[in-house]
């Protein structure tokens, strides 16, 4: 980066305000269900936003991103259960091992384009899923990591206390989104957009497309894994469903619901899908039918995510405003 981005200060300010609001929420509105929702949305927001780094910014539609979410949950859970390390160490192990996984899977997958790329990522995910199911002594197979994840206190934070867990989850989420925001607004982020719009042009300009794509894939994998880690902390376990293809499908739904052209879209989608899921499963056993209908409505009817509409509306207003000023 040649110069500091002019919007950096604004982003940090927004992040700080968002974090403060989220941290205040349990005091203003003491409702444990809302706290649980925010923790889960924090995990999914990191997951969906990191997937959007590939889908929305680089044009790589990965169908296997759930692999990282599940891997993060298992890597963190196993580090805590088997190695007995502290939470920061387990966090570091999760980040490094998921980066390695991203590097290996990415190096193979991104040589393929379009639908072939999508399918090979899905294949890798199913490979990991089958491994989790089959490697019973390590992973507990289809029963998941049993017996709970120990949560020893660190630096005055005790994650076995609900309030601490909540604060930890939202802090990790806001920090993670802020970092991802810096990445997509950096020259590297604009390189990714150029690759998405015109790969040939990018490579003629001297950009190493392979390296840029691989970097994006690894970054997305790491943040997806951090999302999985937050989820593992919440449920105090890791389950094969986290690694299953349905997880990747949910990530894509979140992006579709929230909108892929705004940075915050996938996080908004994570919130919308989680709320929809909670409300619909409370009311009916036929939740698949209702969720499917909502998604069809977005995919066929609206063809945009919620934040896309808001962004369009803001833009129109601004244009109208500036015209009015003339």
């Amino acid at each position, binding site marked *: 980066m040649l110069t500091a981005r002019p919007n950096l200060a604004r982003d940090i300010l927004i992040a700080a305000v968002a974090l403060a609001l989220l941290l205040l929420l349990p005091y203003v509105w003491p409702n444990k269900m809302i706290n649980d929702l925010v923790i889960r949305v924090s995990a999914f927001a990191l997951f969906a936003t990191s997937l959007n780094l590939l889908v929305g910014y680089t044009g790589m539609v990965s169908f296997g991103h759930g692999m990282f979410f599940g891997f993060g949950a298992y890597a963190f859970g196993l580090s805590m259960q088997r190695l007995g390390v502290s939470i920061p160490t387990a966090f570091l192990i999760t980040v490094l091992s998921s980066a390695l996984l991203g590097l290996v899977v990415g190096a193979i997958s991104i040589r393929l384009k379009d639908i072939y790329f999508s399918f090979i990522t899905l294949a890798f995910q199913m490979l990991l899923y089958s491994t989790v199911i089959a490697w019973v002594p390590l992973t507990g197979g*289809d*029963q*998941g990591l049993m*017996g709970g994840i120990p949560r020893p206190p660190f630096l005055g934070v005790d994650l076995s206390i609900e309030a601490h867990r909540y604060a930890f989850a939202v802090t990790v989420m806001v920090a993670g989104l802020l970092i991802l925001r810096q990445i997509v607004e950096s020259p590297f982020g604009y390189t990714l957009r150029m690759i998405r719009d015109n790969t040939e042009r990018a490579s003629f300009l001297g950009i190493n497309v392979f390296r840029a794509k691989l970097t994006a894939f690894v970054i997305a994998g790491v943040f997806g894994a951090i999302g999985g880690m937050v989820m593992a902390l919440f*449920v105090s*376990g890791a389950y094969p469903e986290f690694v299953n293809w349905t997880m990747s499908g949910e990530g894509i739904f979140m992006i579709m619901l929230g909108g892929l052209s705004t940075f915050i879209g996938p996080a908004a989608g994570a919130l919308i899908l989680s709320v929809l899921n909670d409300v619909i499963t409370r009311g009916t056993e036929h939740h698949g039918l209702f969720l499917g209908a909502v998604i069809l409505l977005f995919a066929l009817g609206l063809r945009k995510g919620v934040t896309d509409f808001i962004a369009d509306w803001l833009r129109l207003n601004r244009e109208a405003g500036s015209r009015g000023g003339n």
Partner: protein
Amino acid sequence: MARKRVDLDRRTVLKGAAAGAAATIFAPNIVAAQSKVIRIGMPTILSGRVAQLGTSSRNAIQMEVEKINAAGGLAGRQIEMVIRDSKGQPQEAARVSRELVNSDGCEILLDAEASSGSFAVQEVAKDLGVLVMHTNSETSSLTADPKIRIPLAFRSCRQGIHDAVVSGAYAAEIAKAKKINRWGTCSPDYAYGRDNTQLFVEYLKHFYPQAEVTMEAWPKLFQPDYTEVITRVLQSKPQALYSALWGGDLTSWVDQANIYALFSQMEVFAINMADYTVLTAVKNLPKGIHSATRYIKTYPNTKANAEWGDAYRARFKEYPTNWSWENWVGIHFIAEASKKANSADGKKIAEAMRGLKIDCPFGADGTVTMRADDQTVIGYAIGWGTTISGEPYVPEVTGAKWDTILQLEAEWKKRNNYT
């Protein structure tokens, strides 16, 4: 609707209101606690392939809660069930359970999840400090492993190790009588199928050391076509075959194996056969399949059991399942312990429940006991018999000897460092 409540009828409400009013006048400080309903949260699977687990659990609970409420509920507080679907996903089971306690005000959890979900619910119960009764999870380690066990968690259903001892002993008797030494296995390829089969073989050999396994087939869970598996079994010609297939998988497998006349060529031991869900779904139920009793209304052959099976059938137009009786046991243990403790408080109920023995239509001797040291139910009826093509499906059942089960279970626990 995922959210069903066992509602009171108008008269009961009026009576309750009258009693409440009377109590308000005479004992104003007690009424605050006692006039309140007590909510019990029930996470279970109500959609997807194993939805029957949830629906047949829910039916049984609905029937029993009505009886318990009519008899005064839990220490005077009427039970209101809040039942939710977890879709069979452990993370949803965790979320739903937390929600049931945190926002629906449930004070007790009746966990009618399958195995993986039950471990997730166990974590929630540990976190929130609520009483939980696991009613459907048969995985032994849930209560046997001291690292997983928690003081407020109980189990009211059968478990793998008990089944394995009984199956091994029964199969060994048949093997001894008929000189069956070459065994094959055909079980679903996931943790339950593998564990169950491995334990069965272990106890078969314990009782009949000459037995050896000459072939193993591991079809995938929910596999639709078993042709390849069946032909492989037929080619390797074992004298007997053991299978831990269950539900729809077992039904398809039996239907397909029938075409190849597999049942006339070897003794078949299918542990999960004697459950109405399978017995009534198989097209031509072969005669002579050995099976453990999951639930049939003729075993234990008592009036109480037959009446309960018929009442359930009259009401829900289908027979109860194995899960139904397990939920019966769960809710009645809570009710009896509450009566003993004269309290609806989870911790007091837990205290009263340890070592409690209750009358039960599904007990081997008409009772079941909540064993104090690992908080799991023992003394329930298990037996093996052979099928016929129509009712009563398994006419003669050999009951298990619980002293043998307990002795071998204790040795198994020692081997696994569970003591």
